[in-house]
């Protein structure tokens, strides 16, 4: 195999994992932007999306239906957790962060309790491997990247073009002033929790299509998702997507050139480097909501 073929293949691999991480990062960055809450349990939301997919596929459902179920289930979970827990922490986002730390333990162990701590996997939903001029391309990876691009494009369209997106951006920029325009900011906060959770559910479904997962998969994934959100600038959804792309290329590149044992370190090295040079991230973030003065 020529070096360039390996390179392309590795970039593709990097991008498919980065897709899942980007889906987490969007949720992390949106929730932080609107509420100031850093939800570290977002990785567990992703893991539960994977578990739901595994349960559905094991029960004989097709993968597409399993994905939809994962999105709905985790979206619903996000709704319940926001209404039941996080909304009481809106005045002090640090409390929301602490709640999320507790949720990590609870969610992991609920899954262990019912479905044991072992690895879970599903048969690959797409098994075709294309050979294009010596490059072997696994169709399942292309599927993951394509779905992510479609979802991200749709989210961008909603955020830039619709009145709801405009109101969401206004609420991220200044919650109080948004309320003065008649925007029901609290409902947007619930909406963002549901949307962010649904994206994590999708991410979990896509992840288990690529790799086996365990009830503890969420930890590393959310750390990377958080790193990507920070690199792009917390609160900046465009930044999160761009940083996810950068991370995918960097990880793929490093794996292709023989430093694969360091793959997990790159996102964090990149994060540290970016934060030293540009403390608000590459594309500029918010510092969380302005509190009522």
């Amino acid at each position, binding site marked *: 195999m020529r070096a360039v073929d390996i390179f392309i293949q590795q970039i593709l691999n990097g991008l498919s994992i980065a897709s899942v991480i980007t889906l987490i990062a969007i949720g992390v960055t949106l929730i932080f932007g609107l509420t100031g809450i850093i939800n570290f349990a977002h990785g567990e939301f992703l893991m539960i999306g994977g578990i739901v997919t595994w349960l559905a596929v094991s029960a004989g459902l097709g993968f597409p239906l399993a994905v939809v179920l994962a999105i709905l289930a985790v979206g619903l979970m996000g709704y319940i957790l926001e209404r039941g827990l996080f909304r009481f922490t809106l005045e002090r986002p640090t409390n929301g962060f602490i709640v999320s730390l507790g949720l990590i333990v609870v969610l992991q162990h609920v899954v262990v309790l019912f479905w044991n701590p072992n690895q879970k996997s599903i048969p690959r939903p797409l098994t075709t491997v294309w050979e294009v001029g010596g490059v072997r391309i696994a169709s399942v990876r292309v599927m993951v990247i394509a779905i992510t691009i479609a979802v991200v494009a749709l989210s961008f369209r909603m955020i830039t073009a619709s*009145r709801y997106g*405009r*109101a969401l*951006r*206004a609420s991220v*920029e*200044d919650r*109080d*002033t*948004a*309320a*003065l*325009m*008649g*925007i*029901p*900011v*609290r409902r947007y906060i619930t909406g963002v929790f549901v949307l962010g959770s649904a994206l994590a559910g999708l991410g979990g479904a896509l992840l288990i299509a690529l790799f086996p997962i365990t009830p503890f998969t969420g930890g590393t994934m959310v750390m990377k998702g958080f790193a990507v959100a920070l690199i792009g600038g917390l609160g900046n959804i465009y930044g999160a997507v761009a940083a996810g792309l950068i991370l995918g290329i960097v990880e793929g590149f490093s794996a292709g050139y023989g430093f694969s044992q360091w793959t997990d370190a790159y996102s964090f090295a990149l994060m540290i480097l970016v934060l030293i040079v540009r403390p608000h991230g590459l594309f500029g973030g918010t510092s969380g909501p302005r509190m*009522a003065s």
Partner: protein
Amino acid sequence: MNLLAVSDVVTGYGPTIVNRGVSLTLGEGEIVTILGPNGAGKSTLLKAIAGLIRPRSGSISFDGTEVTGLAADVMARRGVVLVPEGRKIFVDMTVEENLRLGAYARRDDAAVETDFATMLAFFPILATKRRDKGGSLSGGQQQMLAIARGLMTRPRVLLLDEPSLGLSPLLVKEIKAIILGIGERFGASVLLVEQNAGLALSVASRGYLMQNGRIVVSGAIAELRDMSLMRELYLGGVTGATV
């Protein structure tokens, strides 16, 4: 009947009491001003009326209905809208997006388009800067945008907090003309908080003087202007009384 009636309202942050039992009224079509030195509690009172903070006690009624403690977005939809101190423009959004946000809660799309065109005609500078980011505007332009954005909600009561803050005398004159036009062109009553007494006295028909969180004097503008107490307390200060 009064469009807006504030009675015995007490506000505060944490252990600090700001307003200590404030009562005032605003009639349909009126322009009323609250004057007073820095820290008197004028802005806090406006925030309480707009629903950004909850009064500790007392009551606020609008159009004959009790509205005490309603959230800001509910108040805005009912027609009581605050143009906050410091403009609070959405800096990352264009002038057009800022204006359209003002119409967020409205469903009368055709009327929104008419109002949008009216704003661009009434504030020509906004038409020129339509596609520019709010953050790129000058202080005066941002103030125009903030007022126009507030008017896009179709308010029945517009609460203006220090619209002249940091503006040149020329721009203050422009703001004055705009405030005087709000009533007839947009059918809104105005409650104006100002430190620039000259501006406030020249547009309002009635006024309240607030000090240490209390209304100390109230009356028609002509009476206020002549009041020696007013002069001692307030006009003797630095703010330019000429507009």
